């Protein structure tokens, strides 16, 4: 059982000594998740806002579908995207398989429902008095929508943090679409599964801790941003 203690010590050794393989995996993880989150926010925030704000027939049905997509199994997404971007698949010409961009495609499909659903929830649960106040202040439709979105900004931030959490901790899609290629598509999670396969449990635990530290750093930045905004 001493590999648990060893793992904790090794995590800090890897980070402090600037271990090249560990940092390469961290870099790939950050790059992949940042691309995914940027695209998810650009697409998901407007979609989520429309879903929460507008009234249209079949809205309930769409909500149910989006909420179901929150439970998308990661390996299934990996498999379907693989079928599309394999050289024999319909999008094979793009050469996305075993690249960071290919991994990002899978992650976007996974995380987009998170952003859409949480944004829609936030906009929907906005205080009714906000709308009334804005109306009495003479806001027109466009101003009303923009102000509502502005008031929902923290919820969007929270949605981003949640989606980020899903993306960086995910292994099925990364393994299948990235292929765990050293120096290129090896993320922290695929490295953990490799080290476990090798029986290097201590190193696996160490990498798990590195991932936690990374998540902690991202969340700290987010909560700092929030504090500053509210002051």
């Amino acid at each position, binding site marked *: 059982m001493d590999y648990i203690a060893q793992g904790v010590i090794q995590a800090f050794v890897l980070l402090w000594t600037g271990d090249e393989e560990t940092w390469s995996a961290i870099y790939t993880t950050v790059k992949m998740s940042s691309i995914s989150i940027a695209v998810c926010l650009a697409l998901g925030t407007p979609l989520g806002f429309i879903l929460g704000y507008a009234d249209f027939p079949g809205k309930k049905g769409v909500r149910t579908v989006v909420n179901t997509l929150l439970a998308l199994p990661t390996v299934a997404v990996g498999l379907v995207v693989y079928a599309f971007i394999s*050289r024999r*698949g319909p999008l094979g010409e793009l050469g996305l398989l075993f690249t960071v961009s290919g991994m990002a495609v899978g992650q976007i499909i996974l995380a987009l429902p998170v952003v859409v659903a949480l944004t829609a929830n936030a906009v929907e649960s906005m205080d009714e008095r906000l709308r009334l106040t804005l109306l009495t202040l003479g806001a027109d439709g466009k101003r009303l929508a923009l102000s509502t979105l502005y008031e929902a900004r923290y919820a969007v931030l929270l949605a981003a943090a949640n989606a980020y959490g899903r993306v960086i901790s995910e292994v099925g899609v990364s393994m299948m679409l990235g292929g*765990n*290629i*050293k120096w290129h598509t090896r993320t922290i999670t695929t490295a953990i599964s490799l080290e*476990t396969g090798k*029986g290097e*449990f201590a190193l696996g635990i160490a990498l798990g801790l590195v991932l936690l530290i990374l998540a902690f750093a991202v969340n700290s930045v987010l909560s700092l941003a929030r504090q500053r905004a509210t002051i």
Partner: protein
Amino acid sequence: MKRTMRILSLVTLVLMLATAAFAAPVLRMATTTSTEDTGLLDYMEPFFRQATGIELQWVAVGTGKALELGKNCDVDVLLVHAPSAEKIYVQEGHGVNRRQVMYNDFVLLGPAADPAKVKGLAVGEALKAIAAAKQPFVSRGDKSGTHVAELVLWKGAGMEAPDKDAWYISTGQGMIQTINVAGEKNGYTLADRGTFIKYEANAKGNPPVVILVEGDSALRNQYSVIAVNPAKCANVQYDLALKYADWMVSPETQKLIADFKLEGKQLFFPNADE
């Protein structure tokens, strides 16, 4: 601010184009977990780059999946160890130029107490004894090279490969995980020697399972290199794949393979000239 951003993005673009232009050609290989987990590929890659200027990128999966990646034209070359499956693969025209590179061997592992009394038996007899004693046998069950070899061994013992029998445990996982299951369940399992050496080293000299059967000629584990057929996959890098295959069977590389040691023990035995 806007200007700086524009200049910055321009610089990035130029840098990206420049690195793309000067980057070494990349050869993509699908291989088995054993070559990666033992560290063989990490050890060989710098030598290959030095000799040819080609960057080798590999995806380590079970042999079954490696062959599938080749069929789908997603890799250029394969380094795999399931001769029976490979022959069918080449016959079907998916791969060409199959050459044998090296071998290591499988070992039958089990608890030191050896409840089925298989120690020192030929491997076929040992499997029969385990089945007769209904002792737990842990299988990879994932179409990996090791799993394929195990199925061939059951057949060689004149038995149907077990499936639903209560004592037969199919994990569907990698080699180390499967050995771990055998250790937890006090069962037997078939493993490649390299992975067992790693496992033994991790267990600090007190492994729950030990080698009971070894050295049987049926336990030889042959690795071969196969180029993906350019006639089936137009965008495959056939010339690079051939360079890799040529390099793997050259006398210098064969010596490199023989020199590779794990925990002080030689793991792979070059046999390109056989």
